[in-house]
């Protein structure tokens, strides 16, 4: 497994996911900020793309419901846990 590539792809996911978290919390208290909603949607779109690319190569980040399908054998238990990386 290409560990360096995995780490780098994971980092890119964490980065854009964090942008989404920050804008999510901001929008909870500023629900009418159209610019923030636009940026939030933009971040979510990038996040989806990056997650798909990661999951295709390194197995599921989420067990179901977000586009990932398992190959055989059951992939969820195969990929490393967050504290093991």
């Amino acid at each position, binding site marked *: 497994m290409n560990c360096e590539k995995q780490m780098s792809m*994971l*980092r890119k*996911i*964490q980065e854009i*996911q*964090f942008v989404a*978290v*920050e804008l*999510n*919390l*901001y929008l*909870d*208290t*500023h*629900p009418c900020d159209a610019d923030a909603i636009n940026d939030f949607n933009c971040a979510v779109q990038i996040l989806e793309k990056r997650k798909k690319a990661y999951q295709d190569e390194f197995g*599921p*980040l*989420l*067990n179901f*419901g*977000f586009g990932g399908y398992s190959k055989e054998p059951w992939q969820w238990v195969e*990929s490393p*846990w*967050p*504290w093991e990386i």
Partner: protein
Amino acid sequence: MWIYEKSLQHPVKVTCPDVSFAKLVVTQYGGPDGELGASLRYLNQRYSMPTNKAIALLTDIGTEELAHMEMIAALVYKLTEGASPKDYEAAGWGGHYVQHNHGLFWTDANGVPWSAQYIACLGDPIADLTEDMAAEQKARVTYEHLIEMTNDPCVKDMLRFLWQREVVHFQRFGECLNDIQEHMGKKNMWCGCTVEK
């Protein structure tokens, strides 16, 4: 329901294991101002909030705190990785080894187990949001103390991330409080009557 995602919110790295620091930082796992208490406090207070905005914020920050608890758990795991019973003893954490081996447990830096007494829920939005703001401040200061107690730059980076999150959450709870006070004022739920000047 909650969906688990197999990644940390922010990477957790340590330069080398350090059982002594694990013993201290575990307070952010199960201490009075730790991440377990934070997540449970916010998720539990949601039900008595009068506005959807407040419920959403408590849900989202409570959820983020669960991710922070996982980061602290990963940190304690890495700080104690490969440590022997003697290492635990030398770090003054022999008692933890005896009772939990390499397992984690929710205690503060003095070994006091987590307690629901760390959490308040009065069912009053102003009291509860003010409690949340105080909780963020106490967690911020605890992170400052912890950052002083380690020399590991990787650990400092990660703790500084969590420290900054407390500042952001304080801001959001404050905005939420502004909003709630305005909302309740309009409804005259608490101020009785307003005196026009």
